[in-house]
C-alpha cells in the first residue's frame, strides 16, 4: 500500500509541474490550473490511503467540510480588484497550516524526543520542523497584516517605529531562533518545555507583523511575492520533516516561483529586497513636507472631459497607463468602453503595464482581462517604452510613481533609477486623478506640471465615462 501512496505522490507532482507549464500562455492556462488541481486531488487521495487506519476520521472529515465551506464563497465572489488581499489571506492560512503542523508534530513526538528513538537523521528533521514553525508563523501573521492593509482595515501607508525598527526585527528573529535551538537541544534529552515552542511561534509571528507593517502600499507586490515564497519554502521544510515528497516538490516550486516574482518586482522598482523589507519607502524624507513645498511654484493645468475627448478623437494612437487608482475606482469596464469608441474611429489603443502597477504582480492585466481587453493589447514596459514618442495621447489612469519622469532625470528623487514608463515622450498626456495628492510613496511627480500634461480631476470611472460620452457626441 505504501508503494501505491508513493506512486500517487509522484503522479501528483508531475501534474503540478505540467499544470504550471500550462501557465506560460493564456490559451493553455485554464487547463494547466485544472491539471494542477487534479494533481492535488491525487495527492489528497494518496494521503487518505496512507492514513487509512486512523481513529480520527470524524474529526478529519469535519475539518475538511468546514474548510470547503469557508474557502469557496470568498473565492467565487471576490471582485477582481480585491484579488490581492484574497491571495494574501490564502497565503496566510497556508503558512498558518505549516506552523500548526510543526506544532502538532512537536506534541505528537513529545517535544521531538520521539524522533530520537529511531536511528537516522534526527537532527535534520528537527531543524526542518523548527524552520517550518518559524517561517510558517511569520508568513501567517505577515500575510494577515498585508491582507488588512490591502483591505484598508489598517492604513496603507508605512507604520513603523522609526530607527528602532531593524534592531527590533533582529531581536525578534534572534529570539525565535534561540527558542528553536532550546527546543532542538531539549529534544535530545527529556524535551524542552512547551513554552519554548509557543515562544517560537509568538516571536516569529510578531516578527511577521513588524516586518510587514512598515512596508508601504506601493511595495505591496514585493511583500506578497515574498510571503508567497516563504510559505512555499516552509511547506517544503514540513515535507522534509514528514518524509512527504509531494509536499517537498510542491513547496519548492512555489518557493522558486515566489523568489522569481519577488526579484522581478524588486528589480522593477530598482530597490533591493532587503531595503524594501527594511521598510519606510517615502515614510521619511520624501514625505509630505517635500510635496507641499514644491507644489506652490508649479501649477498643473486642469482640463475638462470635452477637451480630453477632442484630443483623443484626433489621435492616431492612444496608450492607456493603468495604475492602482484604476483598481480602486473599478474603472476597467469604463476604460474598455472608451477604447471601443476610439477603435471604432480607427484609433489604435494600447495598454502600457508597469510590472509593479497595482498591488500584486500582474494585477492590472487581470482587471483589464476582466473587462475583455485583448491579451495582445496589454504591453509590458520594455515593449512599449519605445512607442510613446509615436503616440498622440497617453491617458494615465490612477498611476503615479510608475510614470514619474524624475526617476530618469532627478538624481535627488527617492525613486531615481527605477525603470518607469516614458509617458512624457508622447505628444500629450492626460492624467486622470482624484486630487493633486502625491502617490503612496509620497513623492512629487513632475509629470503633472509638464508642458504637454493636462489633468482631469475626479473619480476615474466617472471621468472615463464622461470622456466616452463626449466622444460619442463628436
Amino acid at each position: 500500500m505504501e508503494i501505491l501512496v508513493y506512486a500517487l505522490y509522484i503522479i501528483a507532482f508531475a501534474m503540478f509541474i505540467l499544470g504550471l507549464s500550462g501557465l506560460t500562455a493564456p490559451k493553455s492556462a485554464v487547463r494547466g490550473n485544472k491539471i494542477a488541481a487534479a494533481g492535488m486531488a491525487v495527492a489528497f487521495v494518496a494521503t487518505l490511503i496512507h492514513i487509512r487506519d486512523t481513529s480520527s476520521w470524524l474529526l478529519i472529515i469535519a475539518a475538511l467540510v468546514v474548510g470547503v465551506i469557508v474557502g469557496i464563497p470568498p473565492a467565487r465572489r471576490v471582485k477582481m480588484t480585491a484579488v490581492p488581499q484574497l491571495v494574501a489571506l490564502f497565503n496566510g492560512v497556508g503558512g498558518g497550516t505549516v506552523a500548526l503542523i510543526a506544532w502538532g508534530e512537536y506534541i505528537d513526538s513529545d517535544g521531538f524526543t520521539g524522533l530520537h528513538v529511531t536511528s537516522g537523521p534526527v537532527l535534520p528533521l528537527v531543524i526542518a520542523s523548527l524552520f517550518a514553525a518559524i517561517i510558517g508563523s511569520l508568513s501567517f501573521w505577515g500575510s494577515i497584516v498585508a491582507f488588512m492593509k490591502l483591505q484598508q482595515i489598517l492604513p496603507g501607508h508605512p507604520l513603523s517605529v522609526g530607527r528602532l525598527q531593524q534592531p527590533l526585527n533582529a531581536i525578534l528573529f534572534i529570539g525565535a531562533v534561540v527558542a528553536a535551538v532550546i527546543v532542538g537541544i531539549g529534544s535530545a534529552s527529556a524535551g524542552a518545555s512547551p513554552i519554548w515552542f509557543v515562544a517560537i511561534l509568538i516571536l516569529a509571528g510578531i516578527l511577521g507583523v513588524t516586518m510587514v507593517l512598515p512596508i508601504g502600499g506601493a511595495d505591496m507586490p514585493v511583500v506578497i511575492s515574498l510571503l508567497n515564497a516563504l510559505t512555499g519554502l516552509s511547506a517544503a521544510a514540513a515535507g522534509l520533516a514528514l518524509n512527504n515528497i509531494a509536499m517537498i516538490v510542491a513547496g519548492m516550486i512555489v518557493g522558486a516561483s515566489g523568489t522569481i516574482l519577488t526579484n522581478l518586482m524588486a528589480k522593477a522598482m530598482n530597490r533591493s529586497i532587503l531595503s524594501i523589507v527594511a521598510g519606510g519607502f517615502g515614510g521619511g524624507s520624501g514625505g509630505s513636507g517635500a510635496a507641499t513645498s514644491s507644489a506652490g511654484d508649479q501649477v498643473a493645468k486642469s482640463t475638462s472631459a470635452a477637451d480630453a475627448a477632442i484630443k483623443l478623437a484626433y489621435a492616431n494612437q492612444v496608450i492607456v497607463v493603468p495604475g492602482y487608482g484604476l483598481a480602486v475606482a473599478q474603472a476597467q469596464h469604463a476604460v474598455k468602453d472608451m477604447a471601443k469608441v476610439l477603435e471604432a474611429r480607427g484609433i489604435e489603443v494600447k495598454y502600457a503595464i508597469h510590472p509593479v502597477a497595482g498591488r500584486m504582480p500582474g494585477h492590472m492585466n487581470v482587471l483589464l482581462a476582466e473587462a475583455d481587453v485583448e491579451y495582445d493589447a496589454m504591453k509590458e514596459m520594455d515593449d512599449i517604452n519605445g512607442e510613446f514618442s509615436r503616440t498622440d495621447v497617453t491617458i494615465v489612469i490612477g498611476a503615479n510613481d510608475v510614470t514619474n519622469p524624475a526617476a530618469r532625470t532627478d538624481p535627488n528623487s527617492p525613486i531615481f533609477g527605477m525603470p518607469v514608463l516614458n509617458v512624457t515622450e508622447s505628444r500629450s498626456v492626460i492624467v486622470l486623478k482624484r486630487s493633486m495628492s502625491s502617490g503612496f510613496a509620497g513623492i512629487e511627480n513632475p509629470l503633472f506640471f509638464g508642458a504637454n500634461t493636462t489633468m482631469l480631476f475626479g473619480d476615474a470611472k466617472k471621468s472615463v465615462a464622461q470622456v466616452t460620452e463626449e466622444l460619442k457626441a463628436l
Partner: protein
Amino acid sequence: MDYTNFLANIAILVLSGFIGFAVISKVPNTLHTPLMSGTNAIHGIVVLGALVVLGTAENPGIPLQVISFVAIVFGTVNVIGGFVVTDRMLAMFKTRPTNAATDGKN
C-alpha cells in the same frame, strides 16, 4: 527513515527548486497574478501534512486534535479557495485569442 531516504528527499528538494525556476521563468508578466494565485493554491498541499500528523498519531490528545483540526481547515481553505479563484481569473484570459482574431478582421 534512514539517511539514504533523507538524502534522496534532499535531492528531490534541490531538483524541484531548479524545475520551479525553469518553468516559472517562462510565465509572461501578464499572467503573474494567476501564477501567484495558482502557486498559492499548490502550497495548500500542506493540508496533506496536517492530515498525516493527525492521521498517524496514536490516541491524539485534545491539544493535538484542536491544532490539527485548525490546520486542516486552514489548509483546505488554501487549496480550494486558491484553485477556484485562479480558475475564475484564467477564464477571463481564455477568450482572448479568439477575440483578437475577430477584432483583426473588423
